[in-house]
């Protein structure tokens, strides 16, 4: 389901809820509720894909590419979990989960095409997408950037 900027009511709504009962008495429209469930559905699929990719990656010998992608996967997993906890415009949530989905698809393609030489393949395209995710998460106060100087490591796991 596409979210349009003209749908003001939807765009400015927040996403802190995950079950039908959470919406009762909150004055949400059916369209708003439906959007939230669409979002949840993408997040669930993403979560499944993250876990599957991580377990596939652990079958590869250690390499810088593997470390970078595993770190990014943990990051996007934590970012999705944070969306459950903080109030964020549903439009922003969609932007983030769609970028995560795009990132996961790219990683999946890399793993499918590079079964043996994973340590030497170019992952700059997946890194570019990940940087976009990191940037939004940073701007929206969801998570710090992994490379940020003086970051408190515990901030990732709050």
């Amino acid at each position, binding site marked *: 389901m596409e979210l349009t900027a003209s749908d003001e009511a939807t765009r400015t709504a927040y996403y802190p809820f995950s079950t039908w009962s959470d919406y009762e008495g909150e004055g949400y429209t059916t369209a708003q509720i439906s959007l939230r469930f669409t979002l949840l559905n993408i997040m669930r699929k993403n979560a499944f894909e993250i876990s599957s990719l991580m377990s596939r990656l652990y079958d590869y010998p250690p390499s*810088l590419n593997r470390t970078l992608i595993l770190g990014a996967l943990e990051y996007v997993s934590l970012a999705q979990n944070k969306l459950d906890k903080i109030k964020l415009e549903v439009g922003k949530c969609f932007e983030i989960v769609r970028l995560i989905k795009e990132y996961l698809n790219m990683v999946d393609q890399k793993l499918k095409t590079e079964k043996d030489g994973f340590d030497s393949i170019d992952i700059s395209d997946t890194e570019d997408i990940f940087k976009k995710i990191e940037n939004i998460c940073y701007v929206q106060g969801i998570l710090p950037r992994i490379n940020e100087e003086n970051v408190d490591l515990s901030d990732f796991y709050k």
Partner: protein
Amino acid sequence: MITHYLSQFDKAIYDTNCIVYYRFNFQEKYKGKIFSIFHPFHSKIDKLTSKILNEKWHIYTIKIAWEEIQNKGIAVIVEDLLKEKGLYTEIIARRLSQKLLNSLNDLKSKSWFIIEDFLPSDDRLDQVKQFYINLPDSSEKKRLIDKNRRPFPSYVDLSLIVYSKKIRGLLVSTDHDICDFKDELEKNNLCSKILPLWEIN
């Protein structure tokens, strides 16, 4: 120990691990507290490097070793150390690996650090391979075979051995595939002098 070697040479060759250990020393913050994270060999290689640089030596490595560090070495050492210290998470491993990569790129820019595009000739390579193949059975040789699944070290290690002889530099290593056979390699004139890093006090 170091002084003894300093009088004999004017250049050093660092193997892949030594280069990573030299640069593996970072400060991080956790729950508001600053802590240091460094490799246990860091202080030894740091001490050696300071002495070497005071003597105006250059430190060398070869391109294939440098590529191995970037593709594999960083990840292996970061992962092993974090797991050993109970600090491993995928995010922390990524963060430290990138810090290490940046630090190594900085090292690459130093005038005293030289990466040479060296590949050994087939003859030299075969000579060192044959040496290893002909070694008598021992616990060290068994470890070598178990690790490499063949009776000689990796191509990068063999190349470093040949390279050390070519440029007559002190080969500094923590690799058992090299250090365990130091005396025999030296006696057979297959390398220059080998300094196992753990021997530095």
